[in-house]
């Protein structure tokens, strides 16, 4: 069907992952940080699927399903935390919540 090398797919996953990492490092808004974490998780899943497609086995896709499950759980808890932060501090600045007790 297609004739790309496995490295091409893994390089795409690496580019997407480092873009997500850049987003986590640069943004101060908590929503954007959570979105960048989603990008990184998706890139990791892409790497699994590419590696699974190399050998024509189902294991990579199974791992992607697990990553999907984890991302769903993580997003629901993270968004609930964001709502609590917004009600508490009236801002989405991640620096506002830098103290442990306050």
């Amino acid at each position, binding site marked *: 069907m297609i004739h790309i090398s496995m*490295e091409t797919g893994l390089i795409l996953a690496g580019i997407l992952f480092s873009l*997500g990492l850049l987003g986590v490092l640069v943004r101060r808004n908590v929503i954007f940080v959570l979105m960048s974490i989603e990008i990184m998780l998706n890139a990791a899943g892409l790497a699994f699927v590419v590696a699974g497609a190399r050998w024509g086995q189902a294991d990579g896709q*199974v791992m992607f399903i697990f990553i999907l499950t984890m991302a769903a759980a993580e997003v629901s808890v993270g968004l609930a935390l964001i709502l609590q932060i917004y009600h508490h501090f009236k801002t989405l600045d991640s620096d506002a919540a830098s103290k442990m007790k306050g």
Partner: protein
Amino acid sequence: MDITFYIAAAVAILSTIMVITRLNAVHALLYLIVSLLAVAVIFYVLGAPFIAALEVIIYAGAIMVLFIFVVMMLNLGDKSVQQEKQWLSAGAWVGPAILSLILLGEFLYVMLAGSGQPVEGVVVSPQKVGVSLFSTYLLGVELSAMLLLAGIIGAYHLGRRKKPVYHRFLQEEGGK
């Protein structure tokens, strides 16, 4: 079919760049949906149609809808766009961009030195994925069930709006 992969990859990278540079949260979310759909096309081309469907339904559907609902509940307006503009100065980009470019460069160096193993794009049927999921990885399925339960309980506990509790005498004094 090769060209499909490269076009989808370019769309995914461009829209991801747009996600991390937008000031408005809703615009960034829409670009993120485009990026996820492009990755779904890549999954389909790589011979994983089941995973492509899951990506569209769960990632671009359910998770992004959750994000959009939260952004709607927060009711962010022009004020937050102005604040974002203030936070995202050019100086804020330099350090993180250099560091992640170094990491990406190392990764590219390792990958380009590889032997160029071909991906044939053989379609792995959903049946094969399901059999593998419920036989070899059954323990993982049970663990992810526990994870989802913990996620539900955690989201409910954190998302609950706590009522202000006063002592009843203090509340009476406040009422007077």
